[in-house]
């Protein structure tokens, strides 16, 4: 089987034809492509999942602080909020917000994470999958397989658009992560490959056009909170798809639209910290705080 990961429809059709999930198609194909056994691919992804879980636990600590000193400790606040029974939206959603924040804060604190697909968006996919295991009782094996589905989605996006904020804005980083997470959740919830694609399309449509405008050029503000909102968006998209709601526009077309939008985003809004939120007066003050006054000259 040769797959070029040019189309999500191709992936879903193959899965449908074989009566399996997208993850099984990706597993088979990657074992062939990487000249190893399916078990080896699975085990390596399992190790990766373990790194994600460790990061989630580490990032929840109260004393997590970023290198710049600008962020940290927010995941702890969410955890406390949940423990005190104050969560508005329930342990599932709030738990996912907490996990995305924890991993993203650990990233800013120079902790060990898995880029998924990038370091800036590293909290979204693990938060979705770990929450499905913790809150919905999904097995570890299924969670690892869901990561394979997510990576299949990520490869198609990378081949047809981009997963880099510098190239396509935040929609390409957190948007791709959110789409990957949406597909993973649908598969874990027992949805069909077709529903996975609808979830991908919905997740991407909801985040289309989001620019990459990090304060002081650092992967902190607004990135950490966009990881929280990225997983919430993934859950929204997955829930809608699981209800049987279809995206009127197919996922593959939405990916191309994202590429087109990304190409039109001005360079000042693509990770250069020259526009958007990065140009707010307070953002400039924060920048001075980190680098001294040199930057503002």
């Amino acid at each position, binding site marked *: 089987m040769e797959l070029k*990961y040019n189309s999500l429809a191709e992936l879903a059709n193959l899965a449908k034809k074989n009566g399996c999930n997208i993850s099984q198609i*990706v597993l088979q194909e*990657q074992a062939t*492509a*990487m*000249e190893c056994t399916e078990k080896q*691919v699975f085990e*390596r*992804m399992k190790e*990766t999942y373990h*790194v994600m879980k460790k990061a989630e636990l580490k990032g929840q600590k109260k004393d997590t602080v*970023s*290198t*710049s000193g600008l962020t940290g400790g927010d995941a702890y606040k969410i955890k406390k909020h949940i423990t005190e029974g104050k969560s508005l939206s329930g342990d599932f959603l709030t738990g996912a917000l907490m996990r995305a924040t924890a991993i993203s804060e*650990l*990233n*800013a*604190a*120079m*902790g*060990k*994470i*898995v*880029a*998924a*697909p*990038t*370091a*800036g968006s*590293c909290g979204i*996919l693990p938060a979705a999958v770990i929450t499905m295991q913790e809150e919905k009782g999904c097995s570890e094996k299924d969670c690892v397989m869901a*990561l*394979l589905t*997510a*990576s*299949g989605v*990520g*490869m198609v996006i*990378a*081949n047809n658009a981009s*997963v*880099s904020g*510098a190239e396509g804005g935040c929609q390409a980083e957190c948007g791709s992560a959110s789409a*990957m997470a949406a597909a993973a959740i649908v598969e874990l919830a027992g949805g069909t490959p077709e529903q996975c694609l609808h979830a991908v399309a919905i997740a991407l449509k909801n985040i289309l056009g989001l620019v990459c405008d990090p304060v*002081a*050029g*650092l*992967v*902190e503000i607004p990135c950490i909170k966009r990881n929280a909102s990225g997983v919430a968006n993934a859950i929204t998209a997955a829930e809608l798809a699981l209800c049987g709601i279809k995206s009127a526009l197919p996922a593959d077309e939405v990916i191309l639209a994202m590429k087109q939008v990304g190409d039109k985003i001005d360079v000042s809004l693509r990770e250069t910290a020259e526009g958007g939120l990065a140009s707010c007066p307070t953002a400039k003050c924060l920048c001075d705080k*980190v*680098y001294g006054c040199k*930057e503002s000259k």
Partner: protein
Amino acid sequence: MNIFDIIGPVMIGPSSSHTAGAVRIGRIAHLLMDEKVTKAEITLFGSFAKTYKGHGTDKALVAGIMGMQPDDERIRESIHLAEEEGVELSFVESDGSCPHPNTATITLTGEKGKKVTITGASVGGGNILVSEIDGMEVAINGQSDTLIVVHQDVPGIVGKVAEFLGNCGINVCNMALSREKKGGRAILCISIDGHSDLDLTTYINHFVGVTNCIMLLANNGR
């Protein structure tokens, strides 16, 4: 591209280009230095120069120089660790021009006086492009396992190394040669298909005329 390029690398944050890529650049300097490092001079260009303090790029480069990998949890403390080992560190923020915004030049001095200078850029997603080693132009991207062979520019070396790889059943996917001057020092960079568990560098280092041979594993290699 495979799934571990999308879900991966496992790395120390916060930025694949400002930390993971920086560790990799530093590590190449480390691999090229075959004696204990006493001094590291690091010049930062472009975005590296502007944001290294916030991203921890300085720590990442030093971690690489100390031989760490991008997923080493000691990266945070690398500067302290280097100083403990008696490495004198200096950082220069350059406003000079560079071909890529995330570029660093590293000069290492060893205890016996050996010097190694490399210039590399972090080109996104933890990928790097080393453009210069000891004044010689190279183009090492680390996408495949790559052998870097520093040698004397005399007849036969390139053939000997290539023949050796062929005898090991290793296929060469890219090969480039650069030299200071005719008969002077030269660098041979050979990218290979897949991964070999053979200790290639030990053999190649025994070839007459080879000064130093190192193996750089592919970015998502283990």
